[in-house]
């Protein structure tokens, strides 16, 4: 389980990006984080990844406190961030340097197969389309078999069609080993398609505003009325989060209280 306990972050320039964010995320759960621009979503994800340190509060994964990048936690950024001097296959195997060559090859080959890029194994990253590159980034993050995978708006730079394709793809890959997924997104549709639970954040300072459980089976039908309902409730909550006249619900104390709504 991943536990966030009153995580706060104040940047050196005085911006309070995150205030007392608490949440508990079950192993294998898919959580979407949504909220207005600048409400601290990336800051939160970077704290979980151990890339930046929280000013106060703790992030713990299975009772282990996280303060620097951890083997069990992978991250995918908005851009693929592939290493241009490595072939696609070597990029995917980047995090497996400690494994014996044979096993590394075997896992890379399987991952390539899994993301449908087997014939691109020896291509250079610059020869890939945006969607292909992001698939390589997903494979690179998944191949060390993390328990938690963080995604910061991973599909936002892609066109709608490719985005859908990759969302389905991500779910497919997730089903293999069922890591915990924490996905930051601006796209309500994406949140409802993927997530078991949507966390809505509110800005200045960034904090948890609301949580919405998406009780829908998979695969989800984007056109079903139920799907539309969930979308609408996420949208409503998002609107309320940006409306300053709506008072804070006491959501920072933990998940329990906010769920009855």
């Amino acid at each position, binding site marked *: 389980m991943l536990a966030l306990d009153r995580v706060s972050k104040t940047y050196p320039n005085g911006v309070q990006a995150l205030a007392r964010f608490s949440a508990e995320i079950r192993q294998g759960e898919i959580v979407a984080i949504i909220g207005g621009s600048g409400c601290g979503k990336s800051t939160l994800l970077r704290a979980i*990844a151990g*890339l930046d340190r929280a000013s106060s509060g703790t992030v713990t994964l299975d009772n282990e406190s996280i303060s*620097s*990048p*951890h*083997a069990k936690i*992978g*991250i995918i*950024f908005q*851009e693929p*961030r592939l*290493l*241009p*001097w*490595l*072939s696609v*296959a*070597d990029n995917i*195997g*980047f*995090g497996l*340097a400690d494994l014996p060559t044979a096993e590394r*090859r075997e896992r*890379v*080959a399987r991952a390539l197969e899994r993301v449908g890029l*087997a*014939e*691109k*194994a*020896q*291509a*250079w990253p*610059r020869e890939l389309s945006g969607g292909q590159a992001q698939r390589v980034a997903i494979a690179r993050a998944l191949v*060390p078999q993390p328990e938690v995978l963080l995604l910061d708006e991973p599909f936002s730079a892609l066109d709608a069609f490719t985005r859908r394709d990759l969302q389905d793809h991500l779910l497919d890959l997730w089903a293999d080993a069922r890591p915990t997924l924490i996905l930051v997104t601006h796209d309500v549709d994406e949140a409802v398609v993927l997530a078991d639970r949507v966390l809505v954040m509110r800005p200045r300072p960034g904090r948890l505003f609301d949580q919405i459980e998406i009780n829908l089976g998979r695969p989800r039908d984007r056109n079903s009325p139920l799907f539309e309902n969930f979308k609408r409730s996420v949208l409503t909550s998002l609107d309320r989060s940006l409306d300053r006249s709506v008072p804070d619900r006491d959501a920072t104390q933990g998940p329990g209280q906010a769920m009855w709504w």
Partner: protein
Amino acid sequence: MISDAPVLQQASEPAENVAAPSRLSRYARPLLGILLPLMLALGWELLVWLGWSNGRLVPPPSRIFATIAELARSGELVRHITATLWRVALGFAFGVVAGTLLGAISGYWSLARRLLDPTVQALRAIPSLAWVPLFILWLGIFETSKVVLIAVGVFFPVYLGVMGAVLSVDRKIVEVGRTFRLSGPAMIRRILLPAVLPAYVVSLRVGLGLGWMFVVAAELIGASEGLGYLLLDGQQLGKPAQILAAIVIFAILGKLTDWLIEVAAAPFLRWQDAFVRAKGA
């Protein structure tokens, strides 16, 4: 990495088709570049042959080649070339080592950069040839002062190139290294070195160019052998063909050594090379 995978065979086929036209232009393009000097040389040869010019001050190509051939036959040529090459090699080696070390240190540690860089920049502002009298006083007229002068010329572009390259490594890619928990040395080997390499090769080539420039300066100042000595000797004895012969050899050697760097670096820059070529096509 998994070059034995069967799927790859399909992939290599279209790749070859794509490569074919660019391979053609790869050989055709240098030939285009040779065209102009070749025409000029032939034209000049013709003018002298027709008697429109006596070619005394500007000897025709045939006379330049005859001079080179004669120098080669007497063994003089090898002696001069060896002397010059040796100086350039030593100076280049020292300059590159110092420039790389200090440049990397300045790029990597901001404290070192604050301490070191202003001084280096101030020294760089001095025209390097101004050091010559001092070097001669300190180190004598013989090899040491020449090699040091060349090393100074090579040092600055390498230092600047390395420092700039390290400073401009993409922070986002360094972050990828961090998420995979690379140790310091691994980060340098797997992220920083490859990221810096293209700029480094460029700075080496610039440095080498300056090395050739400075070897001429050093040898003109006082030498009993070397291509620069041939230049000076040709001037004092009024042998323009010998001067031009030395110049031609300088050009050939300069181009050749530059090409050596390019070829040595090519395997490591394949990921980038094709990009440049595609843009040029």
